[in-house]
């Protein structure tokens, strides 16, 4: 398989990774993962630039497998002495691991990567003054959006241009590059003694993709529609999740479907392949080859080609995601699902989840709800979600839905269920798929029969 890095910088990183991997001794597998990125962050506040950060960072992670033992070390620099130290540390670390017949690096599997290169050089060459103007402009637009907007906690412009390469002594060679810019604002609205915040954001592969008006309108709407919010009595409710909220639930499900969790007995769906685990309306794929996703990529963290993986089709569980080690243990090929950074070994993860669109707009799904809650935000996802037991309990803000219409605002309440029940309780999926900053594609989802904890 031949592969041409997309540009000279990627080629240089790949050459560096290969030069490290070439140090493999007899009986030893060696992998180097190298990354370099440059980024800018501009934060605007009160009509001024609060901070302007620009920097380049780089690093390398070295993985050694010897006698079925794995060791790892990393350094936050590409200086040659640091790389030599990392290699020595990784070798030493490997001697303390207990042998595992399944550990080992990826090996070329003949799957050709789907060409993809959304890298726009204009992200890296953009004038600093334009970045500042954009951040200040977004703050102005939010402030002008409503008389009750009293401030903007922060309006941010960020960009990042990054390249990575991975090479192994087993013949893996992959490299890629990506560039993004994004903006976000957190609006503060005051009325009487109440203050609310609302966030809006926009993301793109290039500066021209940014939609400031959409981000500003969103922040203003969300900050101003909660005035008078209070808890409602505890009850069973239907919830309507707009794409960004629904994507969070899809992400929780995806996390339980990694081979690593399944093999180690930590997935509530580990023994359910071929069974119905969700409403027949739900179809979920993890597909970094879908170029609409902001997480689209050619290679996974072990240098294997990314591929389209079906997880749930019409409510039936199809299978799990694997990297090369977990795949070997499960007797399955890698699904190209190794995710990683410089400072960690690869783990199995979702890359670009997408829920297949159903039928109907947000408005039409809303119109079908008699009594329910529209969620504007969820809090406590890290403290109230247990992906082993499946218990889910989160704090929410939002609007009640009454007779198919958005009604009074609500806050300081919780909603709770289990992931297993929520999947079966999906009553509708919309046709309004949205590609979110994290890379997930998701439409509106309506779920019935959750417990609302309130007054």
């Amino acid at each position, binding site marked *: 398989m031949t592969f041409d890095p997309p540009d000279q910088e990627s080629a240089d990183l790949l050459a560096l990774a290969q030069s490290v991997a070439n140090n493999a001794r007899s009986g030893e597998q060696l992998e180097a993962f190298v990354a370099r990125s440059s980024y800018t962050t501009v934060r605007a506040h009160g009509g001024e630039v609060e901070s302007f950060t620009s920097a380049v960072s780089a690093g390398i992670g070295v993985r050694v497998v010897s006698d079925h033992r794995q060791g790892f070390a990393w350094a*936050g620099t590409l200086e040659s002495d640091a790389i030599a130290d990392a290699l020595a540390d990784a070798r030493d670390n490997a001697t303390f691991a207990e042998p595992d017949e399944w550990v080992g690096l990826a090996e070329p599997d003949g799957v050709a990567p789907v060409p993809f290169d959304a890298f726009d050089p204009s992200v890296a060459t953009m004038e600093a003054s334009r970045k500042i103007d954009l951040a200040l402009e977004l703050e102005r637009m939010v402030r002008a959006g409503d008389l009750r907007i009293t401030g903007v906690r922060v309006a941010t412009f960020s960009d990042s241009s990054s390249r990575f390469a991975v090479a192994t002594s087993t013949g893996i060679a992959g490299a890629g590059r990506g560039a993004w810019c994004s903006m976000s604002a957190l609006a503060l609205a005051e009325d009487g003694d109440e203050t609310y915040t609302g966030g809006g954001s926009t993301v793109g592969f290039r500066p021209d993709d940014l939609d400031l008006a959409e981000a500003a309108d969103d922040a203003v709407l969300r900050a101003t529609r909660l005035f008078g919010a209070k808890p409602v009595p505890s009850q069973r409710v239907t919830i309507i999740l707009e794409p960004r909220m629904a994507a969070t639930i899809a992400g929780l499900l995806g996390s339980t479907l990694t081979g690593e969790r399944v*093999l180690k007995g930590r997935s509530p769906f580990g023994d359910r392949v071929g069974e119905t685990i969700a409403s027949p309306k739900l179809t979920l794929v993890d597909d970094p080859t879908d170029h609409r996703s902001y997480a689209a990529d050619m290679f996974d963290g072990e240098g294997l080609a990314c591929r389209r993986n079906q997880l749930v089709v019409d409510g039936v569980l199809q299978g799990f995601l694997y990297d090369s080690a977990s795949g070997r243990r499960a007797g399955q090929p890698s699904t190209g699902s190794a995710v990683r950074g410089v400072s960690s070994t690869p783990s199995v993860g979702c890359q670009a989840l997408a829920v297949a669109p159903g039928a109907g707009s947000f408005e039409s799904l809303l119109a079908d709800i008699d009594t329910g809650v529209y969620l504007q935000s969820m809090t406590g996802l890290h403290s*109230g979600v247990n992906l082993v037991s499946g218990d889910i309990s989160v704090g929410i803000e939002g609007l009640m839905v009454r007779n198919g219409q958005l009604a009074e605002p609500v806050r300081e309440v919780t909603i709770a269920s289990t992931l297993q029940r929520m999947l079966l309780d999906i009553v509708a999926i919309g046709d309004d798929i949205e590609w979110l900053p994290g890379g997930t594609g998701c439409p509106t989802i309506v779920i019935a029969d959750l417990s609302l904890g309130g007054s």
Partner: protein
Amino acid sequence: MIEQSVLEEVLGVAMRTGGEFAEVFAEDRRNASAVLDDGRVEELTSGRDRGAGIRVVVGETTGFAHTADLSEAGLIAAAQAAAAAARGGGGGTNVVALHRGSASRGYDIETFPGDVPKARKVELLTRADEAARSVGDAISQVSVSYGDNRRRILVANSDGVFVEDDTVRTFFAVSCVATGDTGMQTGRESVGHTIGFELFDMYDIDQLARNAADRAITKLAARPAPSGQMPVVIGSGGGGVLFHEACGHGLEADLVSKGASVFRGRVGQQVASKGVTVVDDGTMTREWGNIAIDDEGNPAQRNVLIEDGILTDYMWDHLRARKEGRRSSGNGRRQSYQNLPMVRMTNTYLLAGEEDPESIIASTPKGVYVKHLGGGQVNTATGDFVFGMTEAYLIEDGKVTEPLREGNLIGNGPEVLQRIDALGNDFAMGPPGTCGKDGQGVPVGDGVPTLRVSSLTIGGTAA
């Protein structure tokens, strides 16, 4: 880490374009970790990260750049980038003279983890795994992790501050899965202190592992938590995150000054029940949030935030304090040299009261006893906050009865502080935490005595 003359030169460059304040923050961090999972020592990891962040302040604007290149040329390039980013209008030269200060945390590290053979760290993992599995056949999975880090920092700024610190933290955690007819449940225990390998003289690792296993097994019999409002008793040491979220974040001066805190303009007012005294204390010996200096070079302090229910002060970093013409409270912290500092907590805790913890439970006819809280999250603008319960029980007729499944509790900070109606005499610090704010994580500690909140909303699924 860097010569004084080089620092003076770099700060001079940073100030040359009209900067009002410039700072070099250099950091050299080594991490080591070891993980056992699925009955096997899986992996040891070593990491090294070293670099410097340089900031230049002009008016309201901070320019910031960082570099992994600590040579004079690398630092000067970063200083120029930071100065350009701050867009200073003026010119001329600025001579910076540094005065070396000292940082002291009042105790010594006994055993640097870097000097401990890796085999000894690995041995702890297998011991904990065996201890957890010995608790019962229901324990179906165990993971154990060990971590240590040594972080050397240097702060030099145009006010002449020049100080270095060397911090060592050591951490150990055990997570268990128990499987039964009702599905799977989890139990976790962790310990961490700002000390070296002597951590393992302080704790019985076998007991820690058994506790984690017991918690998972207990929860197999757990019933769904209630849904709605009721009295909540929080256990000693298990629930400091309540105050971290209910008022801690809202008392950070950066959020207050932007109008994003319900506690804005309330200094001097009664914001909590009488008897409630909340402290943030970076000097707290050996605790996870201990610092000798903050990441702006200010000595750690013990700051009383709420005294007997009265709001006494916010927490401050350099920039906010400078604006208000006062001193920093030693709360300027950052995740690494790649980040700008901001106002952060250290060890945040509620002082003990006088009541017997048993009698607090006995005087609660119906409610929930939360022995251990998980993490939490707050919206500082509304004061609404959530926190998870990882080990909780029903209270019926003044007695702790059945275990409850996990879930979040939700409350409003200013209201909850006024609803504290019992404070125990049994103060304890809780497990180590990581506080996240604007994408940066820093180590924090917290602590509480047994206490009761007369009404909180419990986010369970039972009617």
